């Protein structure tokens, strides 16, 4: 039987980890993901987790450990945030290159300098080319649901690629919410058995993992690696549907909120989407035809699905919770604008950076964005392609 429980985002990940009970969990605590590791440590101490729980001396070691354990043939997970993910950097690429289906929960947090412990997407956006699949969550329930699905997606034979699940630091990681926790046995049944293809601990098979490639093979291996993430969309869709059938909450590449008859669209990921929905309800009551598109999957980027949903709009505002210094727009914006390029008729599009270092985004800000969108739709002109929300000028 599923039950309703009051948990914060970190505890929901810990709860899912207990239910999944991976063979190895290796993690190093860092704000705001510390409580994930704490929750798991307590479960382990109480005998509720049978897998190995290892506390190494750094995040770099944590990811290295995950790579070793996954190569050995185990189901493996970790959790981190911000500088912790940054310290894992080189190992992230290795996990993806070796096609190890490691799952990581990331309590999204800003990157130093200056030091800040609050939520934004700088950490995972920085890892966007590391080869990991990226899923973002709006609230605790989604974090829980996404984390369970992540194992199915990562371990699917056509994919075999690591997956990270983002939950906004503090806004989700530390906010209590009533969530529906599914039955232990049902969760286990849903994720199923994991079987490594080439476990290093299989002494009957002689092999090399992570060999050196020169100019003659590196390119082929990198192309071979792409297959996993390119096969992911179909699997993500299947798993999202199956999850819906089994637990009643279906997932796709993105969520549309009052999008069908919208002329203006705000694109926003993660927790900001919740506030945006309230703003849209108010704006709708004022007669403004505005909707929300909330991407759930950022890697592989669902360019076609998102373009199809946006193509009918008059104006689109893409809100990014990270910046990409020197780039022509922030990460989500550059993806979407690039995806729309192939369509002859496409909406006008503008980019806002918001919420860096946990800066609040409120209903009034979404209203300001909508005012801008109305002006753009009216004049057909984007005066400012790139601007900031709630920043002191």
């Amino acid at each position, binding site marked *: 039987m599923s039950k309703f429980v009051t948990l914060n985002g970190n505890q929901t990940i810990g709860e899912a980890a207990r239910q999944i009970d991976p063979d190895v969990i290796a993690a190093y605590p860092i704000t705001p993901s510390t409580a994930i590791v704490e929750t798991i440590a307590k479960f382990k101490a109480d005998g509720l987790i049978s897998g190995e729980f290892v506390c190494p001396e750094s995040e770099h070691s944590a990811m290295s450990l995950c790579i070793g354990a996954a190569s050995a043939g185990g189901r493996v997970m970790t959790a981190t945030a911000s500088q912790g993910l940054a310290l894992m950097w080189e190992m992230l690429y290795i996990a993806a290159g070796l096609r190890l289906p490691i799952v990581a929960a990331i309590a999204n947090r800003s990157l130093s300098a200056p030091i800040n412990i609050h939520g934004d997407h700088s950490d995972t956006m920085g890892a966007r080319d590391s080869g990991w699949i990226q899923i973002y969550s709006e609230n605790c329930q989604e974090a829980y649901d996404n984390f369970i699905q992540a194992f199915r997606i990562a371990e699917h034979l056509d994919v075999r690629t690591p997956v990270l699940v983002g939950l906004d630091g503090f806004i989700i990681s530390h906010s209590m919410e009533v969530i529906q926790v599914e039955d232990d046995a049902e969760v286990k049944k849903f994720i199923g058995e994991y079987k490594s293809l*080439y476990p290093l601990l299989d002494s009957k098979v*002689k092999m090399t993992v992570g060999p050196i490639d020169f100019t003659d093979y590196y*390119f082929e291996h990198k192309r*071979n690696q792409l297959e996993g993430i390119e096969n992911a969309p179909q699997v993500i869709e299947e798993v999202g549907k199956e999850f819906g059938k089994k637990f009643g909450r279906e997932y796709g590449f993105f969520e549309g909120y009052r999008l069908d008859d919208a002329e203006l669209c705000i694109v926003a990921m993660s927790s900001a989407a919740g506030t945006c929905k309230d703003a849209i309800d108010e704006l709708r009551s004022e007669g403004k035809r505005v909707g929300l598109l909330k991407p759930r999957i950022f890697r592989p980027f669902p360019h076609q699905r998102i373009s199809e949903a946006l193509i009918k709009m008059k104006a689109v505002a893409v809100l990014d919770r990270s910046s990409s210094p020197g780039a022509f727009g922030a990460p989500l914006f550059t993806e979407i604008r690039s995806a729309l390029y192939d369509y002859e008729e496409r909406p006008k599009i503008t980019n806002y950076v918001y919420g860096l270092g946990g800066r609040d985004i409120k209903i009034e800000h979404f209203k300001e964005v909508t005012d801008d969108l109305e002006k753009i739709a009216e004049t057909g002109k984007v005066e400012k392609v790139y601007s900031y929300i709630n920043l002191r000028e």
Partner: protein
Amino acid sequence: MKKESWKELTLGTINLDAGNSVKNLTGTWRSGKKPQFIEERCIQCFFCWLYCPHFAIEVDGDKVRGINYDYCTGCGICSVECPTKEKAIVMVKEEVKLFEERAK
């Protein structure tokens, strides 16, 4: 040696062809110098054999007999380590061939 396309490679860079470094002729890396073994100066100390990073010192029974040029990269370590007053391994010039030609 035929090289596989990306589609033929095993997932995750796994190499199941155990011992395939035999096929990797590291001797093709030599670029202008190769060691020459001078048997009459050799005191059979085996330093060269111990230090060679490519196991390219050829041993026949309990005697060093020469160099396997299929794997010798020409790094020169054997010559440096050789302790005899007049070196029993000296580095000599050799013609540099294109990589493709050497790999044939």
